C-alpha cells in the first residue's frame, strides 16, 4: 500500500531526525555555549589563549530585571603609546545571540573603563576579553543570576 509505505518513510525520517538531535546533544562538549559566543571569542583573539588577568567585570550577582543589567568593564593598563588596551569584546553565553558589545580604546582614552546596561535572557555567564596593542589577550567572566529574562515578548 503506497500509503503505508509513505507512513513508514515518514517515521524513518522522524526517527533519524530525533537520533541526530540526541547524538548532537550527547556529543557536544559540556561547556559549549548555546550561541555564537565561543566563535566570537575565537575570532577576536585570533586563536590565542587569553590569560585570566587584568580585566575586571562588575556585574550584579543577581539581576532582577534582565532587560537592563548595569555592567562596568575595566582593564588595567598604563594607556600610553607603548602599552594600551585597543579593544574589549563582551559576550554572553546564554543570550539568543552571543555578542553584547565591542569597545575600542586608544591612548587618548586615558583609562580603559566603560559602563553600560545590557540585556541578559537568563542566568548565564558574561565574558570580557581585552586585546592589547601588542596583541596579547586577557579575559575574565562572571555569572549573573537573572530573575526575569530580558528578551521581551
Amino acid at each position, binding site marked *: 500500500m503506497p500509503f503505508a509505505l509513505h507512513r513508514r518513510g515518514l517515521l524513518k525520517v522522524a526517527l533519524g531526525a530525533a537520533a541526530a538531535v540526541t547524538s548532537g546533544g550527547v556529543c557536544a562538549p559540556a561547556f559549549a555555549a548555546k550561541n555564537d559566543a565561543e566563535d566570537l571569542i575565537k575570532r577576536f583573539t585570533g586563536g590565542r589563549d587569553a590569560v585570566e588577568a587584568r580585566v575586571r567585570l562588575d556585574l550584579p550577582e543577581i539581576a532582577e530585571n534582565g532587560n537592563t543589567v548595569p555592567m562596568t568593564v575595566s582593564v588595567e593598563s598604563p594607556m600610553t603609546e607603548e602599552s594600551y588596551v585597543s579593544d574589549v569584546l563582551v559576550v554572553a553565553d546564554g543570550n539568543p545571540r552571543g*555578542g553584547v558589545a565591542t569597545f575600542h580604546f*586608544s591612548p587618548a582614552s586615558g583609562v580603559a573603563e566603560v559602563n*553600560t546596561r545590557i540585556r541578559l535572557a537568563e542566568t548565564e555567564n558574561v565574558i570580557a576579553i581585552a586585546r592589547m596593542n601588542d596583541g596579547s589577550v586577557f579575559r575574565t567572566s562572571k555569572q549573573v543570576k537573572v530573575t526575569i529574562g530580558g528578551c*521581551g515578548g
Partner: protein
Amino acid sequence: MAEIKPRIKLDKKQASKGDIVEVKALVSHVMETGLRKDANGNPIPRKILNNFTCTVNGKQVFSADFETAISANPYIQFKFRAEESGPVVLTWTDDDGTRIVGQESITVT
C-alpha cells in the same frame, strides 16, 4: 521621527592637561532586537544603534560597536584624557544609517 536629543554630561567642563574626564550619555532608542514578535505573530524587524563614537576636538577617544544585547535607551559612561580644548562630539549610528549627534565642550588649561 522627531529628532532625538541625547543627554550628555561631563564630570568637568574645565580640566588641566592630562586630567581624566568622565562622560555619561543617555539616548532614547528602542534597541529592537529583531527577535520579538508583534501581537499578530509577525517578527518585529531589528532596529538598534550599532555604533557609537566620541571625538574630542576632532580626534577619536572612544568608540563602541553595540549588539542587540544592549538595553533600550542605551546608556554609556567612559573616560578620556584631556589634551586640548574643543568640542566633545558623541555620535550614535542607527541600523538604517541615520545618526544621532550630541555635543559638549571641554576647556583644557
